[in-house]
């Protein structure tokens, strides 16, 4: 199953490489990983997406916890949560495709954030599946470039993943 795991880490040099090293050394699958400092500049928050059976995911969480720099580990997938990923996609938008792509952007509630005579850059935020759907919907051959941030997430409700 796909799991979205949030990790609060000491914002130390090398903390990221400890996590990346852990996944490669132990052969865990890692789909995406995003990291940035939080409102507390001494802490970074990482979101990683991984795939594996329950036993493997359990081990992943234990191993993450074992890292000395790890303050907290939280598996968002265990409860109701919101997942968001941001994508910028550059598409060929000339002639009749221009209208078609504009329509598609509206349907997906995406935004066109850059325009030339022959191209658009479309920005879209949502769950990863929605981003996949947009890519699938773009007519064949029109995609120039895709940039995705990798998912981040937050639990629903009033409780926060803090210290």
């Amino acid at each position, binding site marked *: 199953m796909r799991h979205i795991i949030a990790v609060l880490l000491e914002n130390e040099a090398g903390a990221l*490489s400890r996590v990346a090293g852990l996944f490669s050394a132990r052969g865990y699958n890692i789909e995406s990983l995003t990291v940035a400092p939080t409102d507390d500049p001494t802490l970074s928050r990482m979101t990683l997406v991984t795939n594996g059976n329950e036993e493997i995911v*359990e081990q992943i969480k*234990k191993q993450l916890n074992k890292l000395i*720099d*790890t*303050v907290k580990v939280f598996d968002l997938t265990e409860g109701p949560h919101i997942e968001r990923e941001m994508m910028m996609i550059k598409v060929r938008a000339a002639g009749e495709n221009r209208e078609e792509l504009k329509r598609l952007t509206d349907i997906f509630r995406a935004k066109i954030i850059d325009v030339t005579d022959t191209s658009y850059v479309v920005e879209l935020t949502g769950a990863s599946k929605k981003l996949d759907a947009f890519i699938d919907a773009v007519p064949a051959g029109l995609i120039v470039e895709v940039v995705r941030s990798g998912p981040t997430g937050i639990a629903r409700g009033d409780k926060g993943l803090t*210290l």
Partner: protein
Amino acid sequence: MDMNGVDLSGAEIVVQALIDEGVEYVFGYPGGAVLHMYDALFKQDQVKHILVRHEQAAAHAADGYARATGRCGVCLVTSGPGATNAVTGIATAYMDSIPMVCISGQVPTPVIGSDAFQEVDTVGITRPCVKHNFLVKDVRDLATTLRKAFYIAMTGRPGPVVVDIPKDVTDPNIKIPYHYPREIQMRSYQPIERGHLGQIKRAVELMLQAKRPVLYTGGGVVLGEAAAQLTELARLTGFPLTSTLMGLGAYPMTDPQFIGMLGMHGTYEANMAMHETDVLIAIGARFDDRVTGKIEHFCPHAKIVHVDVDPSSISKNVRVDVPIVGQVASVLTDMLGLWKEQAPTTTGRPVADWWAKIEEWRRVDCLHYDRHSDKIKPQFAVETLYQVTKGDLYLTSDVGQHQMFAAQFYPFDKPRRWINSGGLGTMGFGLPAAMGVQLAFPQAQVACISGEASILMCIQEMATCQQYKLPIKVVLLNNGYMGMVRQWQEFFYESRYSNSYVDALPDFVKLAESFGHVGMRVERPADLAAAMQEAFAMKDRFVFLDVVVDPTENVYPMIAAGKGQHEMHLPPSLSDRELA
């Protein structure tokens, strides 16, 4: 003297921190990046520096010291090759959870990343084989970082910590007020002490109902100083007890309740008991593949209790029914309390039928060997060593058949007496580890059992032993082969002995003598005891005992990799007998 508030340079801070940590010995080797620290060491006499002859040995010696004493080992190496040489020793300590602080020099901060002379990314290279590591870029962080390093190394599941210190951070001309924190609080690291009482209760309930219980204990009992609690638990419950290679001595091996080591070269009775047990109580053991054999065949009938300080050890290889995370000593104390409440009258061997079965397996005599051979059998050599030293010995080991024979034939009755590289299996560990042990206990008998291949991996340390007059006894079981490799080739490669013959061996007697030591060679069984007695009588000399043993002997029992626990090869001398 309290140095708090005194202005010190980075180099002086390092040395003062070691003094404040109560460090007796630093095992090290100098070089450019650590010269300021060496100068600071020179100017004091509280911390003694032991000059090894290779940085791998610095780490192994610190490791041996830590294993024998339970205190933190410390080593000091220079940047680049100094650090890379130490990596094998650090990884060895990591695999066996040994507390160690390794201080490495680094090129000055302004040139880090420029491929400077003797620059290597020490923090990067060591990351996967340390509990934690630090690069200290500011002298103001030095004292706190060192305190953290010792704290992390010694608490929770212990392990090595590397502190990488660029040369400019130790600059003798930049002085700051010294403050060494007594207590350290880390929001990201809070080791667990006590186990969950509800879980311990569940464990005791299972144990009370057990018909075929086994206590399976490991290195965690030694590391967690829980030998006394374990012994009491075994006595109270009357349960049979088996141990991993790393746990030997935590429970007296001469006691009848001890059914031998388990695993690949474990006893028939221990492995059969594991196969048949209905309640397995794993204590400070980590279900290593050398113990479990093929996981699908592991303890097929058992409910499993697992006590471990490291949550990630639990259900890593084998799913367990009652996990208990906590310090072994604390958990066992709670367990004993609950057991006494529930079963106040239990004494002796309550599970009589089970013991009858185990005694039957015992009668197979799985460690049988030919005692009438005209060659020295390695097993006989270890038994003789036991008799000559009367069981009162710190024995370090290298890796191979000799290691397994020692584990099988030298019954240790106390923890911290059997010192070997179990997890990483590092040839070359034995001699430098013995140096650490001998320095920790100058009056004790310390021996290193080795093979002619292993000993050559750190042979240069005979010079260190000479310099510090360490009266270690090397007992070399010289079979002229990388015996353990040869054994696998005999069993699994139709005796194609590819590169396992150690050709062109030195004359070990002359070699020892050239380092200023005593060398002795023994070839006949009849001469062995006298030679060992003579060697151990030389209380102030390092003696190298070259024992020529039967080159064809194999280690039995043996579970081939990928086989189940109950599928053991027994000694061929037994094959004509009916097995239970």
